[in-house]
């Protein structure tokens, strides 16, 4: 594992900033994208996350981390929130927050699970469910920086009705290959039977290990453990497999 790169200016505290909801985008029933205007936001590196803090009227507050979904830019960012049953924070963010509402956030955080436009090697993105969010930021960062390095995305999702950024991914980008791996229900005519990711998915739609791509795997723990183990078995150097796991927390 290489050393992570130092992020931000040394010694400068990551301070809390006030973000205003300026738009809401519905992805599917349980998932919403919040568009946030954040004065003085410095921008981020694709793949990084932010800490979100919500405070109730009696002063009780709680924090969660969310990956940034949008392309890096100053003053603005988007997060995509999947509402979890019984979640303390995600149902509020996904369903209750309205345009004009405020929350606090700080960041950007994380210097390892990032993609930089100056990277020249091919990229393999392996997403499980809402694990697509930080990978989408990488796809968008590649697009807005005019990047030409080839990207392949394997996106595992329950059914065609559970897709994030559906229209944008369907429109596509030159040099971006997208493969959908449906786990429960595939569209009519699909060649692949619905099911969880298997090594042959990575063989058929990923990059050969000899191309030495950087692989980014993001998803629920069980998915991320499996997908990253398969990549290592297929010959990818563990150094080149970056993993972000989530879930198991009930939030």
């Amino acid at each position, binding site marked *: 594992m290489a050393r992570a790169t130092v992020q*931000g200016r040394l010694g400068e505290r990551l301070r809390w900033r006030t973000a205003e909801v300026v738009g809401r985008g519905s992805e599917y029933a349980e998932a919403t994208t919040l568009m946030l205007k954040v004065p003085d936001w410095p921008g981020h590196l694709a793949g990084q996350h932010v800490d979100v803090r919500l405070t109730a009227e009696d002063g009780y507050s709680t924090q969660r981390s969310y990956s940034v979904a949008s392309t890096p830019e100053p003053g603005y960012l988007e997060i995509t929130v999947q509402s979890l049953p019984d979640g303390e924070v995600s149902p509020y963010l996904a369903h209750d927050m309205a345009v004009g509402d405020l929350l606090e956030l700080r960041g950007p955080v994380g210097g390892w699970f990032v993609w930089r436009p100056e990277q020249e090697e091919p990229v393999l993105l392996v997403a499980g469910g809402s694990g697509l969010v930080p990978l989408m930021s990488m796809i968008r960062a590649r697009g807005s920086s005019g990047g030409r390095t080839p990207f392949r995305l394997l996106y595992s999702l329950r059914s065609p009705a559970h897709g994030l950024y559906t229209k944008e991914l369907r429109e596509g980008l030159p040099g971006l290959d997208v493969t959908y791996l449906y786990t429960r229900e595939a569209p009519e005519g699909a060649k692949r039977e619905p099911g969880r990711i298997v090594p042959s998915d990575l063989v058929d739609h990923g990059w050969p290990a000899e191309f030495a791509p950087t692989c980014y795997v993001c998803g629920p723990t069980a998915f991320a453990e499996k997908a990253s183990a398969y990549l290592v078995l297929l010959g990818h150097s563990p150094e080149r497999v970056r993993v972000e796991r989530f879930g198991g927390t*009930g939030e």
Partner: protein
Amino acid sequence: MIISRGFHGRRPTADRKLPPGQYETTGFPVLSAGPTPRLSAADTELSVTAETGRRHTWRWADLMALPSERPTVDLHCVTKWSKFETRWEGISLDVLLADVETDADHTLVSSHGGYTTNIPLADLLDGKAWVVHTYEGEPLAPEHGGPLRLLVPHLYLWKSAKWLRSIELRDEDEPGFWESAGYHDYGDPWREQRYRGD
């Protein structure tokens, strides 16, 4: 203070005390930066190297022959979750370091897979840290750091390195993997030392 309109939240249960910004989980989430290495207990070797260069090593059988303890501790992860009353079995660092002569103040802990983290030596001593091999009565699972991980529960969990390989005692502090990436050098959850400058 910015109030989020209509947010009520959920207060922690009963008498539990959570560090600032944390919430309770009953699951056991997994946080690691790369693929999980598959290591066998039989091939395990743990080393401690003093600032003099003197190296001490323990094979698995050596570790199992040492007196063990069964700490029950609370875990606090920098990603905000806390888990109460987790039960472990392992060897106190006081036992492991008893015969190691050192005047060093710092340690750099290394894992299989290349992960590192820095911890003051004082935070590994006096009953505050263990190398553990058993979680809730079962051999520690690979995704949680098995066969052997460090457990330093009074600091954020990234300090409790998984897949423990070596502990280097040093005169100078050297930041580890996350500490070099903007996370706090010390990581006290009760002072909410998540990121550099906190």
